[in-house]
Each structure stands twice: as C-alpha cells, then as structure tokens.
C-alpha cells in the first residue's frame, strides 16, 4: 500500500509540472521583434546576442514567466545601419505582426527603430544602445534598459578623481555619439573639479590612423589621458599608444568587452596599464545569476557556432531585455497601454542587476553592474571598483 500511494504521489507530482506547462501559452503567443546586426561589421557581436535572447525566450516559455503568454521572438537583421533598421522594423511590424520591439545595437540604427516604433505605436525596449536622448526623443513608446552614457560617465569621473592624481588632462574622442557626449560631460566635470584640459581632440571615427593624435600627447604633457573610442578603434588606439611608448596613464570609456578586447590588444593594454569602464567581466565575484548565465550561453554558443565565447554585456542585455518584456507582459499584458504602464513599474533582479525605470523611461543606473578594470602587465585583469 505504501509503495502504491508513494507511486501515486510520485505520478501526481510528475504530472503537476506538465499541467503547469499546459497553462503556459494558454493565453496565446506574443510576437516580439528583435533587431540586431546579424551581418555586416558588427555581426560578431549580434550573433551571440541573438542566441542569448533565444535562451531567454526558451526559459520564459518553459517556466511560464510571462503570465500564461508564450513569447515568440522574430529577428530582423538591421546591420547596425539606419536604412536597414528602418526597413526591418517596418517588416517586423507589418509583415510579422510583432506587438513589441527590442533593439538596436548602434545608436544611428536605434534612432531609425525608435522613429518607426513611435509612428506605429509599438512599444520599444532599447536594450543595448546607451545614447542619452533616445528614450526621450523617441516618445512615450520607448524604454531604455541600458545604462545611459551620462550615468556611466559620472561614475567614471568620480573614480578618476578618487584614484588618479592629476592636474592636467587630455581628452581624445571619436566623433560618434559616445565620444561626443563623453567629451561634453567630461569637460564639464573636469572643469568643475578644477583640472586643466591641455589637449582636446575629436577624431573622425572612420580614420584608423591614430598616430597623428598620439604624436601630440607627449607635447601637451598631460598627467592623464582619457578617451572615448569604441569597438575596433579602441583596440587600434591602444595598440598604437603602446607602440609609441607613451607612459602617461590612460583611462578609457568602455571599449569592447573584456576577453574580446584582451584577445585583440591584451599585451599592449597590460603594458600601458589601461584602466577602463566595463559593464561585465567574468570572474569569481560574479553573482549566481551571472555565473549561471555565463555557463548557459557558453554551452549554447559552443553548440550553435562552434566557438569558445566569453559572454559580453551585450549578450546579457539581450537576455535581460527578453526577460523584462516577459515580466511586463505578465503584470500588464501585451496591449501597449497596459504593457507600458507595467514596464514603468518594473522592479526586477536579472543578470545585469536590479532594473527599475525612472519617470523618463530610462533605467535607474544604481542597480546595474558597472565596474572599473585595469590591465596588469602580466595580462590579467584586476577589478578596481
């Protein structure tokens, strides 16, 4: 008898989760469009972002995290290019009939997507682009879940004042929106702190030759060089900086994520002792959620792309975005007005940290992961803050 009731209990218990699964999707599927660069010069980042988002959707559906709705992701290749982003956003909305949007990666493409989302009245979650004005410019349908440039830069300025002894500073930026806002914000912050700016250079972002700029540094004799140069150009700059044998301390606004950047110019960065901001780095200090994510993503990328991948904060942003969308659906449902209200009331702990939005629909920076790291000469990274 005992074994029978045990078996019955076991059968009931086993049956219970599948009953719950039968609930998931009972309210139907919600199509969510995701715009990412899947071809073109940023595809190396977009491809893994896509996988991270897909993992999130699978979990949402398996664990019924969307309040009975099933999430169906539809991807659009926006190539980090405004025209393609515009057309793809259109396609996802009118052909694929997505009800919600996530994207994009590059700021110029995000502008295009934001415009379309606003016109079509489709809620958009800007999850990777950190441009300062997007959520505001794009109107009431856009939320931004990535830490905005100015918050990142405030933290960077605070660190600089605390950890570096300097009276004169050189500011070198690219003429894209990161670089220009960095220059604007940092100039104001530096002047307020009484530091003298001895060199102020804005370089064309398509120009890979940094030698001219670097040549001017020893002449201006700054105590510290701060730069905002993104992705590949950052690696080019660091390489040329190291080769020029300059010993002035160098601080950088976030170049490509750790590991990718280290693979490119780790030795040079170590030689300089580069200090930089980063949103995420794989380490023992990671939260359990982060460690779990790293494991999942690495395994899947190994399986799908046969690559040994080190998760980047863009991957995390893609994953978290899908989870944020699911959570808002759970609390409010997929209809725009309710969804937007629910999104505004978000209080959720995900891989990047704690998500809450302010009155302007921008994520509050306090809860999110943000570190300052430094390259040691032996090639390893240390977390400064």
């Amino acid at each position, binding site marked *: 008898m005992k074994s029978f009731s045990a078996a019955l209990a076991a059968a009931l218990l086993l049956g219970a989760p599948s009953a719950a699964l039968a609930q998931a999707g009972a309210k139907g599927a919600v199509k969510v469009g995701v715009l990412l660069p*899947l071809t073109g010069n940023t595809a190396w980042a977009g491809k893994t972002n896509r996988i991270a988002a897909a993992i999130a959707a699978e979990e949402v559906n398996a664990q019924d995290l969307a309040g009975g709705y099933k999430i169906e992701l539809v991807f659009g290749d926006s190539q980090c290019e*405004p025209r393609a982003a515009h*057309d793809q956003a259109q396609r996802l909305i009118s052909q694929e009939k997505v009800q919600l949007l996530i994207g994009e990666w590059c*700021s110029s493409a995000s*502008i295009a997507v934001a415009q379309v989302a*606003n*016109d079509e009245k489709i809620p958009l979650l800007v999850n990777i682009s950190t441009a300062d004005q997007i959520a505001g410019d794009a109107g009431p349908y856009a939320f931004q879940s990535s830490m905005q440039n100015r918050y990142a830069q405030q933290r960077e300025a605070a660190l600089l004042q605390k950890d570096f002894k300097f009276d004169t500073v050189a500011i070198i930026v690219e003429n894209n*929106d990161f670089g*220009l806002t960095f220059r604007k914000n940092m100039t104001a912050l530096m002047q307020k702190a009484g530091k003298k700016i001895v060199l102020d250079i804005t370089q*064309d972002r398509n120009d890979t030759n940094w030698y001219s700029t670097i040549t001017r540094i020893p002449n201006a004799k700054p105590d510290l060089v701060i730069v905002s140069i993104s992705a590949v150009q950052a690696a080019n700059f660091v390489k040329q900086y190291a080769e020029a044998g300059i010993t002035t301390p160098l601080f950088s606004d976030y170049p490509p994520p750790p590991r990718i950047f280290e693979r490119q110019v780790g030795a040079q960065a170590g030689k300089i002792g580069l200090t930089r901001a980063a949103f995420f780095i794989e380490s023992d200090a990671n939260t359990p959620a982060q460690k779990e994510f790293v494991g999942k993503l690495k395994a899947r990328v190994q399986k799908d792309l046969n690559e040994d991948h080190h998760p980047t904060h863009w991957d995390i942003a893609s994953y978290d975005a899908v989870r944020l969308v699911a959570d808002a659906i759970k609390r409010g449902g997929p209809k725009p007005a309710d969804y937007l209200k629910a999104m505004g009331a978000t209080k959720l702990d995900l891989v990047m940290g704690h998500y809450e939005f302010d009155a302007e629909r921008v994520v509050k920076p306090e809860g999110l992961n943000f570190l300052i790291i430094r390259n040691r000469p032996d090639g390893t990274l240390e977390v400064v803050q």
Partner: protein
Amino acid sequence: MSRRILLIAAVAILAALPLTFGTFWINMVITALIFSLAVFSVNLLTGLTGLLSFGQAGFVGIGAYTLGVLAKQGHPPILAGLYGVLLAMLCGFLLGLPAARLKGHYLAIGTLGFGILVYQLLTNSVEVTRGPMGLIGIPTGGVDRQTWYLIMLSVCLAVLAALAYIDRYSALGVILKMVRHDEIAAQASGINTFAVKLIAFTVSAGLAGLSGALFAAYVRFLTPDLFNEQESFRYMMMAVVGGIGSPLGGIIASLMLTMIPEGLRMLGEDNYRLLVYGTMVLFVLWFLPSGIGGLIDRLRR
C-alpha cells in the same frame, strides 16, 4: 492604336497595384521611388551630359537635412523642402564651377571628395544637425502610406516625363548630348560648354536634393550615415544597372534592386543573400550592357 491603349491600361493597373499592398511592401515601393529620384539625377548628369559624379549623396543629404532641421524648428515642411532643393541647387552650382573644367575620372574623384566633405560637415556640425545623435520626429507625419505612394508616383512620373522631353524633343537635350559625345565639336559649334555643364550640375543637384527632402519627410529621422560615399556608389550602381541614359530603366532598377534583396531574405538572415545581390548586378552587366533601359528599348522595337 489599340496596342497603345493596352499598354497604358497595363501600366495603370501596375501603378495602382501597390495601393493594395500591405504596409511593408508599399513602404519598399515608396523608398524605391524616393531613391529613384537620386538615380534620375545621375541619369541627367552622367547619362545625358556625360559627367561622372560620385558625390550625389552630398546633395541628397543637403536636401534632407535642410528639411529636417528647418521643419523641426517650426517652419512649414513644404517650404523647408523647397529651401532644401534650392540649397542643393546652389551647392550644385558652386561645385560645378570648378568641376566643369574636369574631365572623366578627375571629375569622378573630385565629386567624391565633395560628397565626403558634405558627409563630414553633416557629422561634425553638431549644433545644427545634431551630428551622430541624429534627428528624430521630423514633423511631417499624418500622411498615410497610400497618399505617400501617390505623391511619389506623381513626382517620379513628372520627372520622367520632363527628362524624356529634354532627351528627345528639346534643344537642351541635343546640346547636353553633344557635350557628352564630343565636347570639342560642341565648342566649335559655338556652344558655351561651360555653361551647359553648369546647368547640368545645378539641375541634377536639385533633383538629388528633392530626393533627400522627400526622404526626410517620409522616414522622419536622419543621421549623417545615410549620406556617406557608399550611398553615392549605390546611386551610380543603380543607374548603370538601369541603363545610364535611361531614367525609365533607372526607376525599374531601383524598384527591383530594393525589393529583390528583401525577397531574398528567405535565404536566411545571412551573407548569402548579399552574395546573390552582388552576383545579380554582375549578371545584368554581363548580359545587358545597356542595362534594363537597353532591354526596354530592344523590346520596343
């Protein structure tokens, strides 16, 4: 006579077809038509007058940003668009002054330089254009897509007709073509080839500016990346595939080369689709040396 009526009926049906399309495809048609205005500017400048230009994206950008900036400041969009076209024409004139003395590939590279200069100006004049931060929410909304399609169709047909008239019936057309074929003979006949080239530059810049203004009004956002030299190359590519001297071929090429890559998406969100695109361009060039326009001419006969 009845054959003519049939042709007109077919064209009318074809023209009305997009009105039945879903949002996505009608959007493709509209952007293709806007694009073809820039292609027309190449047809006029290079096809008709024989002047190579790789800087047309500069004029498109000038037209677009003038409308965008002025409209956002509160000016009525139509007026802003008009200013855009006029400013583009002025720049075309100014570029023409030195450029009219250049020949062949020197002209091509010179105009390329102009295009790059405009692109960098748009990117760096952050106070005016917001540079890489871009312009969002240009206040030209409230016009539905079907209306946009009819607007673009009318504009394109008007320009097509005008170009056809210039090409076949007007003295200006003859003069332009003479300058293309044999500049020295033209000069010997007493034609002020310098003035002629200047006119060609100015008018074609205006066309390109019109394309830009309409683009800004339609998509309602702008970033400088939309007007880099790759765009200029694309206009030239479209024009040659369509047949450099054939605006009709140009509009067809524009429609085809915009819609076919979209259709190719079924091959996957991958590089293969772009490989097919490049190969298609090559195939057209190999087998249709006068482009699509040449094919049409042959079919006519």
